């Protein structure tokens, strides 16, 4: 039942993501049975490709799991899949278990609330929608990530696994 509600919501928001994809040259793939959405986007700054993966089980009662996928190997969560947005504040990239374990640190990412993640123990998953500001839809989150790789001052290129 919950999965059906989530599927309907994801399908609706997927249309918004596809609209942005048309403008920005993204590629969007969705598996509505698995409740996953992947968005492949290119940095306008240096042409590097990034793939954002949304795992939407339980969405939007809970935020999606937002992971980066290596654009060539398809490996989920590898540090080389991430961008470095630390050119100015506020930035997204943070580290869980060392510099080779980056996380997109925002209230919209369920990984930040995982029991084995120690980044923000003061954040409550049930409050994610009120805490995430305007970034509570898949389209808004995708646009936020695109914004991180489109600002030549903020964006520092592909993350190299170093602090």
């Amino acid at each position: 039942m919950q999965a059906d509600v989530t599927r309907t919501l994801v399908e609706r928001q997927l249309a918004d993501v596809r609209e942005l994809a048309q403008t920005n040259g993204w590629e969007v793939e969705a598996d509505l049975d698995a409740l996953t959405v992947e968005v492949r986007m290119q940095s306008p700054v240096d042409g590097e490709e990034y793939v954002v993966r949304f795992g939407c089980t339980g969405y939007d009662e809970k935020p999606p799991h937002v992971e980066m996928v290596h654009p060539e190997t398809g490996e989920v969560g590898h540090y080389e899949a991430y961008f470095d947005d630390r050119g100015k504040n506020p930035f997204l990239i943070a580290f869980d278990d060392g510099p080779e374990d980056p996380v997109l640190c925002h209230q919209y990412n369920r990984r930040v609330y995982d029991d084995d993640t120690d980044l923000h123990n003061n954040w409550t998953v049930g409050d994610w929608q009120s805490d995430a500001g305007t970034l509570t839809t898949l389209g808004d989150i995708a646009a936020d990530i695109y914004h991180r790789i489109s600002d030549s001052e903020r964006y520092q290129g592909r993350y190299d696994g170093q602090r």
Partner: protein
Amino acid sequence: MSESNDAAERGNDQGASDVSFTVKSGRGDSQEFEFQKGTKVGDAAEEVAETYGYDPDDPTFVHPDEGELDRNKPLARYHLDGDTVTLVNEERGV
């Protein structure tokens, strides 16, 4: 200073001092806006954000070729006429 959808209604009756472009949001909004070219990017983005019902937080636009537009520069600095951009907010992070 600006009015959404006016540009389309005016057709080619657009002054040289104005620029019109379409703004999409992550929530499916898509409208054409017209601004004076001297308008700062940040001011235009705030107006669009309010029109779309966002609580603006230093918003700006991302252009697919030009990247993120500097909020403090005038729209005239960019080649936006007839183009489509994406509205983004300056959101929190770490």
